[in-house]
């Protein structure tokens, strides 16, 4: 009886395996391209305080005159810091798939469902269509270019990010 119970316990322990869970590298995408071409799109179309300018959102972004990492109200309009830009890019990197750029959440969430995009609650809240009505929107094409590996001059400057290079 005792031997049987021991055998059963050992068998069960043997059945309970573990999940192999190797680390995955974050996608290596071009930081200057993000700073000078993607960040302006996010500023203009995503990072309002009621939307992704809220740190509780899985995808969130710091933006001048909106959500800031540190500082007082009077400092809210200062250029984005290098740290804020880095955090913004890392937040975006969680939603990209460089191996299949068109399958990236960063593109499919704001793309209208009629054009093949995912459900996006922002469309319901504002009732004014989704961010990108189709995949020919120039801003959609810009973000897609970043995910697909396009690069920008490291010395590029975009208004509002001068202090963050």
């Amino acid at each position, binding site marked *: 009886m005792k031997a049987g119970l021991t055998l059963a316990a050992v068998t069960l322990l043997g059945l*309970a395996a573990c*999940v192999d869970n190797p680390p995955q590298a974050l996608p290596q995408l071009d930081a200057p391209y993000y700073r000078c071409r993607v960040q302006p799109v996010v500023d203009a179309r995503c990072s309002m305080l009621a939307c992704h300018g809220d*740190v509780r959102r899985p995808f969130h972004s710091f933006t001048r005159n909106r959500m800031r*990492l540190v500082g007082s109200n009077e400092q809210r309009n200062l250029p984005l810091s290098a740290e804020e830009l880095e955090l913004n890019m*890392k937040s975006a990197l*969680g939603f990209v798939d460089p191996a299949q750029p068109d399958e990236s959440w960063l593109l499919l969430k704001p793309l209208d469902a009629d054009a093949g995009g995912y*459900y996006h609650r922002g469309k319901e809240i504002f009732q004014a269509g989704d961010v990108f009505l189709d995949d020919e929107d120039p801003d959609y094409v810009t973000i897609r270019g970043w995910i697909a590996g396009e690069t920008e001059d490291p010395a590029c400057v975009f208004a509002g990010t001068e202090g963050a290079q």
Partner: protein
Amino acid sequence: MGRAACGLLALLAFGVARPVGAENRVASNLSLYSDDDHTDVITSVTRVSGDPWSGGTLEASYLIDIISSASIDVVSSATDRFDEKRQAIGVGGRHDFGGKTLSLNYGYSHEPDYDGHGVGASFDMELAERNATLGLSYALEISKIGRSADPTFSRDLLTHAIDVKGSQILTPWLLADFGYSLGIQDGYTAKPYRYARIGAVVPGDDGLTGVSAVPEQHPDFRMRHALYGGLKAHLGAEHAVESRYRLYLDSWGLNGHTVELLGHLGWTRSFGARLRYRFYWQNAANFWQFQYDEPREFMTRDRELSPLSAHMVGLKVFGRIEDFWVFEALQLTAKFDGFRYSYRDFPLLPHRMGFVMESGVEVVF
């Protein structure tokens, strides 16, 4: 669906001719769940059963529950609160072949983001001059997981459950039971609303997010084992004490132990109570982390996969009145369970306390 279910209930309860000695039953239960994580659930279940032929029983049930939640899972994704309704119907039948019983059942459950069909079969038999029983059951559930208000999201999940159980009378006053359950999940088991967090916490965010967030990703396959057993000692004709233990292991590295103690009190044959205390402890699934240092193939922030322990105490009282009005009997039950969960490594919700209150009425005719 609600109207069809009501029609089926009425047919079973009143429209079936019954053999001598058979019983028909209609039961209704109403329960309220509430916890300090701002989640409330009201559940109503109606069941009818009848014995349309000798040895045979047919039954049907209809469940509806209404959930209102602003739990930390919801709030941490910047959603204020959600309200949801779930409905489920079940039909089943069994036949007693004289010491051997075969049962079949089917169920359907619907929520705005979930549809599930389940079928099951079980076979139970008495052995050793009714001193022992043996049972075998299998259930299959085919689920479609969606995302509320999102027609573009749909994932499949297949769940198999096999259960082997038995019981043995050891002495005239001592009964033992034991069993083994095997569960297999194949498909999407994550929550489409939940995100894993990567990187250091951003200052001022109260730990709600990290530098990056990615949709939760679980392995597509999970094998679950449970070994359980219990001893029930009768103290005189009406009272009993019972102790139970359950060991749980799965292929995600999660181990759990459940210990339960129960006291059954019968002041008369028709009025009694049950007291119970349950303790549960588990470690974490081996891919669970509250905050990941780097991206992993599998990532989750599901607190139910984190290390946790739980205490529960409960009281249930029940009474039966024979020859009540036009019925053969009326049975009433009331139940209260209070619980406290502790999530050791989940700082957003270190503890969760709550209760479940339930009342039930059943008529036999």
